[in-house]
């Protein structure tokens, strides 16, 4: 027990500093040189202080959004992999992101031009789409099974994923060229949220999900081995499955509606962390969240600087950097 606590403390310290450094460092990096002294100089009115505007309007919200989305997707990935007892599961396996994408596509092509508290119709519609997908998949998993069949959950999710993907293509095909391009861009992920409104909208949902995640690790440890064994050890399997499913799905929906379906983090970060700290969910779950946050913030710095002034979609960067890095780590470990 003390051993776990110790390892937890060490990994929190290491990965926590990593995430902290990323969030603090990212707003300092960019193609436009800014002077920190000027950024925090209160004597210059904000409207005239371009350095402060670049720091507070352009870079800081991006870094925070990257941290939130990265942490959420990585943690949700851990939960889904344990819940479905499948190492290939991702936050997007059960159709949550496809539902979110469909919602966003519809909002774009139907030209819903509303916005509320800085949250655009596209963001709201994508969250609604993800909830729809969650509802359908859950209803399927309950329908034929007293309880909660993870096999049916997986099959229903995968099927819903391809069904929604077909609908997305259909909507895109019917859309105008301009809208088709916007939808394509949305699917590549984007953290340039220009302000804090969208961030504040996603934050409460993610916080609730993380509170649920904090309750899960011990049960996930047992569950990821065998549900019967978990039940015999006093785990309320159904309840744990339900909490895991809903919290991870909701968190994924919030993250995707904030930054788009940024791939790769939800599957690679958990495995990366397991390679480093072992399989205990009490450590893997929080460590993945921290590493996911650091990784996405760093990837976004690359996205906005690599080809500047042209902005690169961050979803491309995550896979482009993460893929080879993970393969290298995998080969080196063997």
């Amino acid at each position, binding site marked *: 027990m003390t051993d776990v606590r110790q390892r937890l403390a060490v990994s929190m310290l290491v990965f926590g500093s990593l995430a902290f450094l990323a969030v603090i460092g990212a707003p300092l990096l960019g193609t436009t040189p800014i002077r920190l002294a000027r950024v925090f100089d209160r004597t210059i009115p904000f*409207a005239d202080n371009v350095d402060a505007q670049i720091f507070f*309007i352009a870079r800081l919200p991006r870094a925070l959004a990257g941290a939130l989305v990265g942490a959420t997707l990585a943690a949700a990935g851990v939960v889904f992999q344990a819940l479905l007892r499948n190492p290939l599961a991702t936050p997007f396996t059960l159709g949550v992101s496809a539902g979110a994408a469909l919602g966003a596509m519809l909002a774009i092509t*139907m*030209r819903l*031009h509303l916005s509320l508290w800085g949250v655009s119709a596209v963001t709201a519609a994508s969250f609604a789409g993800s909830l729809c997908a969650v509802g359908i998949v859950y209803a399927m998993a309950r329908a034929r099974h007293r309880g909660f069949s993870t096999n049916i959950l997986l099959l229903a999710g995968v099927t819903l994923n391809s069904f929604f993907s077909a609908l997305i293509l259909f909507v895109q095909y*019917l859309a105008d*060229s301009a809208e*088709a*391009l916007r939808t394509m861009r949305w699917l590549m992920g984007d953290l340039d949220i220009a302000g804090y409104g969208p961030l504040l909208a996603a934050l409460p949902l993610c916080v609730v999900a993380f509170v649920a995640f904090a309750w899960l690790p011990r049960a996930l440890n047992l569950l990821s081995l065998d549900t019967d064994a978990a039940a015999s050890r006093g785990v309320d399997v159904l309840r744990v499955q339900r909490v895991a499913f809903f919290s991870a799905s909701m968190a994924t929906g919030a993250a995707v509606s904030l930054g788009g379906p940024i791939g790769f983090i939800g599957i690679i970060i958990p495995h990366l962390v397991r390679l480093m700290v072992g399989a205990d969910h009490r450590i893997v779950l929080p460590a993945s969240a921290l590493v996911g946050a650091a990784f996405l913030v760093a990837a976004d710095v690359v996205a906005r600087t690599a080809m500047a002034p042209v*902005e690169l979609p961050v979803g491309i960067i995550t896979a482009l950097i993460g893929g080879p890095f993970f393969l290298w780590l995998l080969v080196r470990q063997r």
Partner: protein
Amino acid sequence: MKLGAEGWGLGARGWALGARDSGLGIRLTAAVLALVLLVSAPNARRAVVAFGLPPSPAASADRRSLAGGGQPPGGRTVESGHVPQRIVALVPSATEMLFAMGAGRRVVAVSSYDHYPPEVERLPRIGALVDPDVERILSLRPDLVIAYASQTDFLAQLERARIPFYLYRHGSLADITAGMRDLGARLGLAEQARAAAAEIDRGLMDIRTRLAGRKRPRTMLVIGREPQSLRAINVSGGYGFLHDLLDLAGGENIFADVKRESMMVATETILARAPEVIIELHYSDRASPDAAAREREAWKLLPGVPAVKNGRVYLLYGGELVVPGPRVVLTAQAFARALHPDVLPH
């Protein structure tokens, strides 16, 4: 008003789920990127005439750019003296050119994106870049089809049906009048086409001379973004007819150094490059003052940008804004009015 499929890639049909033409559309046009990917022979920028029956469209791409007559490899003799009388135009700017040079009565069908001149509204629509309706086109028995060079499968079908085609390629502002004269020569209307092209050149030259020697405000030309937010901002780079028009209308494109037709930029870049004027293109014909005000309001998120601070964010509405055809003079005038309101009052 639909966004013209003029080289904007992915020209899918415009009947977007019953929401068409509703509301204030910021109709984004990053699509140029897609076009660049689609165009098969990017080095040949001028429109070229081609017909005949070569073995495959890909193999004949180079020959085709030189074509215009002679003996194609398929062995069929080209009727070089034939003047087309039944034209199917899949390219909105070409349709406008045909009408401008007085060949409007020869047009038998247009693309799904054509809305100008008003006469086209009664003509059959036969698809666009990605979805030309081959059966209907064949049934109309055209003797010339104006198509995009990237439509290779479609062009192969036309070749098999022995229907001559004229390839349209999208390029700079100068290519518009050059393409118009070229098309006129193909239709036996060289004189009329020259006259119409000269009128466009005169209109553009007039704007250029009136603004000569004036200070050129640093301008950002936004061709799309997410409505009512500053996400996914797509701007004109330093290439293409929109950039050329901005330059002609006395504006200095802040992204002139990036030789691309369109590009996504981050809010940071906009803050750093500090445009004095922001011109934003909306491809719907009009918007309610309310909706326009709400869209302008979105820029308040970047209060430090000089254009925002000084109230110099201009939202332009009009289907002609994206069509590199005879109406570019209108676009140039609209740009000039925004950039130099003292010279060309509203």
